[in-house]
């Protein structure tokens, strides 16, 4: 019953987004996914740089946040003495409770000046890489990725911690009994919990894709496709937040709603992919590490 309600809600959102953006869908069609121009004056709209900015910033955020978040989770669940765990759990969860506008302000006044210092002092050999080309302004992809990764850490680490806690104690005891070191036992627990950990990372990814306020405050809001970490870029959620209130033309409004639809579709695809990934990892028929070893022995 409630599951049906959920399906109906998602369906209604998709339908309404489609209906409101029909004008833009009819006018641009697939061009909308393929053009790089976002020009409200000429009424030409293409979502490609915005899709790029959203995915690039989120992937970068995951690259930064995943090792840190897993480190925190492993420390809390496996290594930390009992009296440190509670305060640490509290502190990581506190990070999740900070409103994103506060992250944005912190970004503007603390993070961006630091990033600018780093950009100004980039060694020459690094600057020759396309990743580090661009104006040393401070605002841009790097600041956005860092701020996103901080916002994502509590989500990934909380779930990963719970998943690790759910690994049966017998597994660890078994590993120790076989003469495994502590690190090997942790690796075994991580392997046992891998589907849950992928789920935790994907939860963080979903959070990063939709984050709006903090990102728009530090990303520089310039729609362009570039791998440069220093260049200002733009995300889908940010363009909607920026332009929706003052969009007067129907086609502009419709294009903004279509961006919402694109974001919806992209999120859907990524969720489906992560489901598939988890499913393929958890599939019973998969030759397990143990079985492969046994086969080799025989």
């Amino acid at each position, binding site marked *: 019953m409630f599951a049906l309600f959920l399906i109906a809600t998602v369906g209604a959102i998709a339908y309404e987004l489609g209906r409101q953006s029909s004008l833009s869908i009819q006018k641009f069609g697939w061009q909308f996914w393929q053009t790089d121009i976002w*020009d409200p004056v000429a009424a030409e709209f293409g979502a490609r740089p915005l899709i790029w900015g959203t995915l690039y910033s989120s992937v970068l955020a995951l690259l930064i946040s995943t090792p840190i978040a897993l480190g925190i989770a492993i420390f809390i669940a496996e290594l930390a003495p009992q009296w440190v765990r509670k305060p640490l759990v509290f502190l990581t969860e506190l990070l999740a409770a900070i409103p994103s506008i506060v992250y944005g302000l912190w970004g503007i*006044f603390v993070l961006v*000046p630091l990033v600018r210092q780093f950009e100004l002092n980039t060694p020459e050999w690094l600057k020759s890489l396309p990743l580090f080309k661009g104006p040393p302004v*401070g*605002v841009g992809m790097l600041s956005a990725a860092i701020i996103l990764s901080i916002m994502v850490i509590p989500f990934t680490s909380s779930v990963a911690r719970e998943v690790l806690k759910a690994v049966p104690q017998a597994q660890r005891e078994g590993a120790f009994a076989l003469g495994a070191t502590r690190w090997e036992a942790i690796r075994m627990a991580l392997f046992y919990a891998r589907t849950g950990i992928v789920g935790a990372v994907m939860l963080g990814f979903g959070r990063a894709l939709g984050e709006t306020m903090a990102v728009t405050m530090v990303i520089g*809001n310039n729609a362009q496709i570039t791998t440069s970490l220093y260049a200002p870029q733009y995300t889908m959620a940010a363009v909607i*937040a920026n332009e929706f209130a*003052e969009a*007067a033309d129907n086609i502009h409004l419709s294009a903004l709603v279509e961006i919402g639809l694109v974001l919806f579709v992209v999120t859907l695809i990524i969720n489906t992919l992560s489901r598939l990934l988890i499913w393929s990892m958890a599939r019973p028929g998969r030759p397990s590490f143990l079985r492969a070893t046994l086969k080799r022995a025989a």
Partner: protein
Amino acid sequence: MNRARTSFTLALSVTVLSAAVAAQKVTITGAGATFPYPIYSKWFSDYNKQHPNVEINYQSIGSGGGVKQLTSQTVIFGASDYPLTPEQLQAAPGKILHFPTVLGAVVPIYNIPGVAAELKFTGPLLADIFLGTITKWNDSRIAKVNEGVTLPNMDITVVHRSDGSGTTYIFVDFLAKLSPEWKKRVGVAGSVNWPVGVGAKGNEAVAGMVKQTPGSLGYTEPAYATANKIAFGTVQNSAGKFIKASAASVTAAAAAAVKQMPADFRVSITNPPGEASYPVASFTWLLLYQDPKDKALAKIMVDFTKWALTEGQKYAADLGYAPLPKEVVDLELKSLATIKAQ
């Protein structure tokens, strides 16, 4: 005894009276631009003090949203930072009248380490910087206008608004009037496709970013520049004079534009004639139906607008706006009289 009775009757009559007033209490809703919100809310609360039974509720949701709500007749009045387009006027169920309420200006703000002098800008110069054709502070074209100022060999970081706004509209409208290339390549709207630079959300963020980025150039309303202690430059007007934005120079711009004022007040006053005019300025408009559905509410709205255009103007300068010149107010009062109210 007698005295007690009198006071009792008095108390009773006061209660009855206030009950009657409470019954008549009316709420008028409007929606629109955020730019004039500070002065509008001051006006609404002051008007409410004089007329306790009238409460005006204004939602500053942006010009675009205000026009949409007015067109669908969910609000009594709208407010916009740009005049409606002919298509928008056509889409409305009745004739919409424009009433300029106050004036606002936009100033070029900059942060160049080691330069204390007040810089001079011209329209073509600003357009070339924002187009990305001038990229260094020591460019000869900047030096030519600013003789005697030594500018560093430093990249210019252009900072613009990322959100749609009336401030952007005024600024790019000025650029388009003085640079054919800007008109062709970028155009005029509340949000445009910026050729270069970084976007910041809101006046505060633009001011903040300019303040902490050495070598940056942006644009905001003057109030944000003064509040953040950021230097802002003078801009050359059509008479060739470099003018600093102030309440007086902005009002002068509007007064100079009066001669070409169309009957419906849908006019851009950037780059106006006049020696004393500051050239990057604009009206902000209140929007009312000429033949509204609810005549009683319309009567109150007409009375309020009349008050705002006359007595209300005295608050403008303190809140960072420029008051309307008398010539414009006179024209508006005539137009206001054409509204079919009770």
